[in-house]
């Protein structure tokens, strides 16, 4: 992809990356994809969670076989450093001296325990930028609470708002908030770099995943604080549109989204359906009427949609100007014409995974596009390169560290 030469957006930026699991590695992947040198610090004694989370190549577990880990760590350099070894501190210090930005998303207190808290880093490099993400941020009664990203959906109201009103709420899939909060994290890191550029001052950015996730439900919070109104999940319904739902299609468990919010779209939908008699019923003549008879409406529309495969239905409706979209399954995403056109999945050869898909960036930059140079690192794959080429150790120093188990 986009392998034309030229300066890259983060050319020369050096990032020492202690991040693990979701939000952290995804944040630093944006930096790596755009040219920063990102050195991912791992340890053999405490294997990164995603390396031991599936899916695995051939369903065979192994620290180099996780597609989950691979996706968030492409384009980075991987080193191993046993942080509980007494000599690890000195090595980390040299890496900090090299770095412009240090990133981490451990439970608060972990970096401090290693002597790598912000105050420590500042003594090593006065204008260092440190980025920390954690479940609840630093300070407060719960800040040491460990957890997974899945839990943030629950805490932030997103679970409460997902599902059917007559059923228990259902969580959005996976460690949902991790993946989009990385975008806010990246934004704040670049703002800090800009600030240092202008003022010479470093800083510590402290991201609470809960607080960041709440930005995405801000209207619901305001509805409560200004009106005292608690919003409730509503299945696939919308106050502004009807029909508005996920309708059954031909095939096993195939579905298509249809969202009609204007009179023109309603007329167009009726036309595509062949103007059946029920379309002309008085009760469906207005938006309010359709909202008032939504159960019947959904049934009638669903009866019609079931004749089509979703791709066919989407294109019929879109041609008529009705918003509609296939409920893409994962296999459909890889075949989706638009995602394919945009090169959404980048295929790179990985030593153990073989040719594997990595997410490309969701945006295209006209002058400094992302580049995908190499897949995720094997454990400690770049020890020699990083310790010798980047921080200037000689063979003897490196040999001693290896012999003493510091680089485990």
């Amino acid at each position, binding site marked *: 992809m986009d392998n034309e030469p030229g300066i890259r957006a*983060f050319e020369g*930026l050096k990032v020492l990356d202690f991040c693990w699991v979701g939000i952290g590695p995804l944040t630093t992947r944006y930096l790596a994809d755009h040219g920063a040198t990102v050195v991912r610090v791992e340890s053999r004694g405490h294997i990164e969670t995603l390396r031991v989370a599936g899916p695995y190549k*051939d369903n065979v577990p192994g620290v180099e076989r996780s*597609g*989950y880990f691979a996706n968030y760590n492409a384009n980075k350099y991987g080193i191993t450093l046993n942080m509980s070894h007494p000599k690890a501190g000195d090595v980390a210090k040299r890496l900090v001296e090299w770095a412009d930005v240090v990133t981490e998303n451990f439970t608060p207190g972990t970096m401090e325990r290693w002597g790598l808290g912000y105050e420590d880093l500042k003594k090593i490099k006065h204008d260092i930028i440190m980025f920390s993400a954690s479940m609840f941020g630093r300070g*407060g009664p719960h800040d040491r609470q460990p957890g997974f990203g*899945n839990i943030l959906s*629950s*805490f*932030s109201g*997103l679970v409460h708002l997902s*599902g059917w009103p007559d059923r228990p709420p*259902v*969580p959005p*899939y*996976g460690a949902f908030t991790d*993946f989009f909060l990385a975008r*806010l994290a*990246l*934004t*704040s890191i670049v*703002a800090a770099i800009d*600030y240092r550029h202008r003022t010479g001052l470093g*800083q*510590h950015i*402290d991201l*609470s995943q809960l607080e960041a996730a709440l*930005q995405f439900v801000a*209207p619901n*919070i*305001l509805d*409560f604080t200004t009106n005292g109104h*608690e919003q409730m999940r509503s*299945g*696939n319904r*919308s106050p502004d549109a009807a029909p508005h739902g996920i309708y059954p299609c031909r095939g096993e468990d195939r*579905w298509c*989204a249809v*969202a009609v919010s204007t009179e023109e779209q309603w007329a167009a939908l009726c036309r595509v359906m062949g103007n059946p008699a029920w379309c002309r019923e008085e009760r469906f003549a207005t938006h309010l009427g359709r909202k008032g008879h939504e159960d019947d409406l959904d049934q009638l529309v669903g009866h019609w949609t079931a004749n089509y495969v979703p791709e066919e239905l989407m294109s019929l409706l*879109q041609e008529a100007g*009705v*918003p509609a*979209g*296939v409920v*893409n399954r*994962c296999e*459909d*995403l*890889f075949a989706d*014409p638009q*995602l394919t*056109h945009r090169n*959404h*999945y980048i295929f790179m050869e990985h030593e153990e995974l073989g040719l594997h898909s990595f*997410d490309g*960036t*969701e*945006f295209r*930059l006209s002058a*400094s596009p992302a580049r995908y140079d190499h897949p995720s690192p094997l454990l400690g794959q770049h020890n020699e390169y990083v310790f010798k080429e980047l921080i200037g150790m000689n063979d003897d120093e490196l040999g001693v560290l290896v012999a003493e188990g510091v680089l485990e």
Partner: protein
Amino acid sequence: MEANGLLSPYRVLDLADEMGIMAGKILADLGADVIAVEPPSGNPVRRMGPFYKGRSHPERSLVWWAYAGGKRSITLNLESGDGTAIFKRLVAEADFLFESFLPGYLNGLNIGYEALREINPGLVMVSMTPFGQDGPYAHYRASDLVGMALGGLVNLTGDPDRPPVRISEPQFGRLTGASGAAGAMIAHHYRILTGEGQHVDVSGQQAVARVLSEAPATWNLNQVSIRRQGVFRTMAGGQLARTTWLCKDGYVTFSLTTGTHGESTNALFDWMGEEGYDNEGRSFPDWTSLDSSTAPQEMLDRVNSQVESFFLAHTKDDLFTGALDRRILLFPVNTFKDILKDPQLRARRFFTRVEHPEENAVFDYPGGFVQSNQQYVGTQRRAPGLGEHNCEIYVDGLGLSGDEMAQLRELGTI
């Protein structure tokens, strides 16, 4: 304008509607001077509910309040010659331009990226649309539901015996806007290095396709298509484990975890034992020694009903407080009422008081998305009224005269 905030020297012209309004909010929170450029009829977001006091009014949309906070507002009809001329003067002095029109719309008004670049080569223009600027779906019509479906999230969410389901609160535009802010800042860094601007083309569908966890990789590696599982998750051995549970006053999230996370399950059964619950879970000595790929479904089902009755006898608060003491991975399914009284958010002083003089009221708003030890990040003031800053920008900024302003008003340009 008080010059504080990490991005205080920069100006953003923000034309985005719900597809990208979040991007400008993120930069405004970081201190940038974000000017919402609205058509004289107002940004369409102003017509989105819920509304303050439940009455539809362009100055009372809570979506607008939420995502235009800290911005300024001017009105400008881009579809008039005077409008585009004034717009170009604004662009000449802007650092960023955010927009979410259908691909080609601004080009049609001769103010597409190529034209604006002539005026301001340093401009970072960010276009946030459902599918990106080009490709077979570029002109497809999307809505939140359609975007979330094509992006792949809807397929993964919902009860298996009903259709897949979306998050009721629209997230398509917000995920896209967050990507827009990220793309803008990457381009900004390139500008720091080179002085050159560029065009950032964000696809909402791709912004969704990147939040699917390991699901796409699972297809790519193993040709396994993950489907919606409702309140259950599939464990490594294919067993179903409940994740959302009814309790006395709502729901909690908890999984019967095994292996390295088995301590959490052990601690729950110990707690149940302390309270006299007859639990067979205790007959399994140690959940840490169980493997998520081999724990028998029959056993999981059996302990499920005991856990269920324990939860039903306790409130969310009791369960979470007990879980914190015992290091159990259990969390409340918060409602917004719960969120407002959360002690952690209160201790971090997350909520910020925002004055609404027109309503003669002060309301709690969500605070910033990060804390910086250098500068405040977060909402600086309430969302602007329609065209509230016309004079500031047009008269004080561009030097338009009172006569010119009157004429432009007359023509419906502002």
